[in-house]
């Protein structure tokens, strides 16, 4: 019993933080919905794990469940959209790496640009947390995250997820790519905020918001999928 408890405590530390950095990276990099949704699922589990250091285990489990449900909603939608989409077939000929189009035809929003963005974000965050107090590096101080008693690794990973989600939003247009990016931002914020705000009402409402956001993006993805589909249901049937 003691051993498993020790293992759990260990996992909620550095491994969870490292895992969150990787999941944020994966969600930003990949255009394959299977990979991005798997990363999002793992991200929610790791966030729950990391949160066990600050909140009751029950609250952490609820957050994991909400995340799993959100991912499930998006997964069902993505499968349905893929069945409807013709564009997937058209793109089959282009070279892919890690679910991304890497050929010249991949355009400005392909893998090379995303790798460059990751480099810039990493440098920015490192400077933000370790550099001298210039205007840029004063950002965490502006939001007073250092003085709140939140663990520095949690602060870093929250900013990392927020940044990855934000650049993901900027570079994406499709609902099924925007949704994981936005949920990453909200999850990153929740990671830092949950350790400060103990109110169960906030936890409940924030969870409801996460679920409804996933549902809304699913609806948008289906609507967009129908527009590219040659024979979808008629207009009125698509309404909720």
């Amino acid at each position, binding site marked *: 019993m003691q051993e498993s408890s020790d293992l759990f405590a260990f996992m909620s530390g550095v491994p969870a933080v490292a895992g969150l950095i990787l999941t944020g990276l994966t969600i930003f990099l990949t255009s394959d919905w299977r990979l991005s949704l798997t990363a999002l699922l793992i991200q929610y589990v790791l966030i729950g794990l990391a949160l066990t250091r600050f909140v009751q285990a029950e609250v952490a489990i609820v957050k994991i469940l909400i995340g799993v449900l959100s991912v499930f909603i998006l997964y069902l939608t993505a499968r349905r959209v893929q069945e409807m989409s013709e564009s997937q077939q058209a793109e089959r000929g282009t070279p892919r790496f890690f679910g991304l189009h890497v050929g010249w035809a991949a355009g400005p929003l392909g893998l090379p640009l995303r790798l460059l963005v990751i480099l810039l974000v990493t440098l920015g965050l490192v400077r933000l947390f370790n550099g001298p107090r210039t205007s840029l590096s004063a950002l965490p101080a502006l939001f007073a995250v250092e003085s709140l008693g939140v663990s520095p690794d949690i602060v870093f990973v929250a900013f990392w997820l927020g940044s990855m989600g934000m650049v993901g939003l900027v570079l994406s247009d499709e*609902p099924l790519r925007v949704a994981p990016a936005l949920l990453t931002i909200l999850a990153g914020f929740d990671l830092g*905020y949950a350790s400060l705000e103990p109110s169960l009402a906030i936890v409940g409402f924030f969870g409801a918001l996460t679920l409804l956001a996933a549902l809304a993006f699913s609806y948008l993805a289906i609507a*967009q999928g129908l527009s590219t589909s040659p024979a979808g249901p008629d207009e009125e049937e698509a309404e909720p």
Partner: protein
Amino acid sequence: MTPIPGPIVLLALPLLAASATYLVRRWAILAAFLSSATTGVLAILCLRLPLDRSAFVLGREVAFGRPVVILGRNLILDPASQAWLAFIFALATLFYLIAWRVSQGRSFFPFSLVILSLYALIALLQTFALAVIVFAISTTLAVFMIQGGQRSSVRGAQRYLLVTLLAVPFFLAAAWFMDQSLLHPDNAEMAYRALLPAALGFGLLLAIFPFGTWMPALAADAPPIVTAFIFTTGQAMALFLALAFLRDIPLALNHPATPAAIQLAGLVMAASGGVMASVQRDFGRLFGYAALVSLGVLLLAFGTGGSQGLTLTLLHMINRAVSITLLAAALAILRHQATTDGFAGLGGVARRLPIATVGLMLGGLALAGFPLTAGFATDWAVYRAVSAEPWTWTLILLASSAGIAIGLLRGLNAMLGTDPRDDVARQPVIASLMVLALAAVVIILGFYPQLFLKPVQSAVQAFSLF
């Protein structure tokens, strides 16, 4: 018998009506009747019922001001919330009547009623953080009626959803600092720290430059009355949240940078919206940019400060709502009959739909603040209020109004074109009468801008910000 508490009525009635309208959503007349009757009754209750004692409604005793506790949260209807909800329910009644004649999608009635119930919850909640999350939840529901079964573009709905959800973390951070400052009144720094995230959050929520791109995208994609619902009731609730925040943190209101920042944001919004409005090629986007300009003027009015500034803001909010409703109703007829709102496809439509054309022009001009329309009085007051600023401010505001007018003239020119569209059906009688009635209200408000002054002054007093 125990009297029914007001908060229960305000929350439950729209939800019940939403369930009923969902069941009858295929019969527009029934759904519209149920929705408009519900919101009409709620608007009257909010206007008439006292908060300090019980009253009898249809033989049942209702204690409108009695607080209730739900999930450990105290829900109280205060005078400010009462006035706000009266405005929102009255406006919704208008929208439902128009949607009866010009379909806005079957999801409009049930979803908008649920959203109205959530707006009531926002007004009743005493916790800023929860109110913000509830507002974001209402946005996720709004997506379903914005899209309304149409398949073409999801850009407007997606952008609206994004900006609102992105604002949530900023607001929650601001609320946390706010709570800390209330817990430790000696630590003023905490209150100051709430200002930056709150400014970013309200920047996103109130479509302040450069976060306003969702407004034209939404106006282009969504059914016009749904757009009007979001531009008026949705943005009114965003303003309500801003006022609630300022009421909780008076420091933010007294900070010298606050009015200057609000005014500058308003000016930039008005300028950018005006420039963009002049070059649009369809009435949908033009509507979005005109509403953006008008929102900028609203912020300028608020930035003038003091109770007079707030009075001007609320008066402008009412005038703006009426103008937007007129424009949306006319646009709804145009899209319904001509199947497009792009200038290129509207040649000769003015002859087939003269009333809708007049409604479009008058609504647009009212949003631009032209004389003899509802927008003029408040816009003129704002011009005078900013006359203390560099003269370029007034010039920019005039240019932004001119930008809307140029866009309207380009649209009118296309509608008067020589290529008659014989396929366009004649104007629908009842919907056109509604447009005429709204046009009359816009003109009456132009002649009697003080019509709503008394209730607005009461609302300003109820907010007790100054």
